[in-house]
């Protein structure tokens, strides 16, 4: 028999400290990678030159350096951080409300819808009677299409309840619908338009600019406090629907709220960068490995993990091909496989 056992409060604090440190380390790793991302790129600018450009500000005298730093590298980095965090959060929410560790932000058809919207814009941008320039039309239509998919799944949820099976089935139906519509667009497109659509689907940070950053960033910032209110409710949902309901939780309402936030986050992320896969699937697992099921730390951990994966992919893409950066969506797909294997192997057999 051991001597006086350590009181729960002490153990609790110790665990919280451990988890806090883990998240802090992840954040530091992210900061380091972000720095790396800033200093790599096809122009071959030295860190010293970049530092000077940073200090000189966006209106600095050396226009080339200032533009490269302030208009190209920094927006790409910010976009990567925001999109990674959004997808990581959306992934965790999806996995919680669908009670499925294989769910991702794209499970309910959002990526197919976004792809369709983008294809529509790229193909027939001139046909759409909106006073938007081409580069803004694509994200706009992608966003709208994603929200349409959201509305469709929402309608089904209202009519038939928010049980995970119902949501997934509705999502699959929506996904197939938009997927086939997208395929139809691709079929009708001329080869150069087709190439553009396919490239958009890869997912890339290359076209990041401050407008995109502000829109996606705003969406993320708006969703964060909305999520904060439901932290414990989401953790309770992990007990299973029956027990969560028995604890007084309105499970259906919680699922609907979380679903809406997920849709918003996903739409905000993919509309500008294209469908970047794997981040939303892997980040929640990394978060869970770091801090467990408690969503108080789990949500920020998922956001940081998502940003980590995406920035790491961005750096890798830039280092693999000096001249033309490989689209980051391809790198995450390639890197996602070993990550998934690592997660599977690290699980203690459940």
């Amino acid at each position: 028999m051991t001597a006086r056992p350590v009181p729960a409060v002490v153990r609790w604090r110790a665990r919280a400290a451990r988890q806090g440190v883990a998240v802090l380390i992840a954040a530091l790793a992210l900061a380091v990678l972000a720095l790396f991302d800033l200093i790599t790129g096809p122009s071959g600018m030295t860190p010293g030159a970049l530092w000077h450009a940073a200090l000189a500000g966006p209106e600095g005298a050396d226009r080339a350096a200032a533009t490269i730093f302030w208009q190209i590298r920094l927006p790409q980095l910010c976009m990567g951080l925001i999109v990674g965090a959004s997808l990581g959060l959306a992934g965790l929410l999806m996995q919680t409300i669908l009670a499925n560790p294989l769910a991702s932000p794209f499970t309910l058809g959002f990526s197919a819808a976004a792809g369709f919207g983008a294809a529509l814009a790229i193909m027939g941008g001139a046909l759409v009677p909106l006073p938007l320039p081409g580069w803004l039309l694509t994200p706009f239509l992608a966003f709208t299409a994603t929200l349409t998919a959201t509305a469709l799944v929402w309608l089904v949820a209202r009519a038939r309840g928010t049980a995970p099976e119902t949501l997934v089935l509705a999502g699959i139906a929506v996904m197939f619908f938009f997927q086939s519509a997208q395929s139809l667009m691709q079929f009708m497109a001329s080869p150069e338009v087709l190439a553009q659509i396919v490239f958009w689907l890869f997912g890339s940070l290359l076209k990041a600019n401050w407008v995109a950053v502000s829109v996606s960033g705003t969406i993320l910032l708006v969703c964060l406090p909305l999520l904060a209110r439901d932290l414990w409710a989401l953790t309770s949902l992990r007990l299973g629907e029956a027990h969560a309901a028995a604890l007084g939780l309105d499970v259906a309402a919680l699922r609907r709220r979380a679903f809406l936030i997920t849709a918003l986050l996903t739409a905000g992320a993919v509309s500008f960068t294209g469908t970047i896969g794997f981040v939303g699937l892997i980040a929640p697992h990394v978060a869970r490995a770091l801090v467990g099921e408690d969503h108080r730390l789990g949500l920020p951990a998922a956001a940081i993990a998502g940003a980590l994966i995406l920035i790491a992919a961005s750096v890798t893409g830039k280092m693999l091909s000096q001249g033309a950066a490989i689209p980051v969506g391809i790198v995450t797909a390639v890197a996602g496989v070993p990550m998934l294997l690592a997660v599977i192997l690290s699980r203690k057999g459940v």
Partner: protein
Amino acid sequence: MDDLLDITLPALHRGRTRVLASCQLRFAAGEVVALIGPNGAGKSTLLQAIAGLAPEPVQLTRGGRAVARAEIGFLPQAFAVRAALSVLDCVLLGRREALGLRVPPHLIAEAEAMLNRLGLSDLADRAMHDLSGGQQQRALIAQRLFRRPTLLLLDEPTSALDLHHQLETMALLRAHAAATRAPVLAALHDLSLVARYADRVLVLADGRIEADGPPEAVLTPDRLALHWRIAPEVLRARDGKSVIVPHLMATNMQG
């Protein structure tokens, strides 16, 4: 605190079939009530309805004021928890509404005390999905007790427990009811356990509450034969409580 708890329920339906007639229940403070009945009688349905989880609205009043749904602790029939949450976390979730970004240390201490009373202190930091069915059940009971409900509803709370823990849990429920003055309504299968630990027994059969009274009055051979289709012996244990020894009816080939 010592007021009576009144429950008014309309008729309960599943689809178009009427499962239970409307009823009016009254529980005294700290009363431990057992809900028994043959399979499919509607015990779970009744408990869910009282907990507010059925479409039909339920009215609960105590001492003149309405009892909110949040004040009811309900443990549904064994649903396995597959999360990696620690047992301590799980118990804390019982008072989810009191939790913020920081969890107050006094809550943690109370949760720990609750775990001790259920003999789960060794398992406090284990993940829920690592526990056996019985351990999970006790952890969930701890969570519901931690919630300090005004009314505790339990559906088969001892179904996965071994004999020792069955007795311990029932004793704990009685102690909890006495201490907090909250009535406990538990659906139970084991009639001897009912006879031993319940203050009052409700028999649910044929779509209505067939009997309502102390165990000795309700657990008669005739009633048991009528609803359970067994030919029981009702014996007395050394402390005077009834013990039901079931036998199949000789004439009933279908059992």
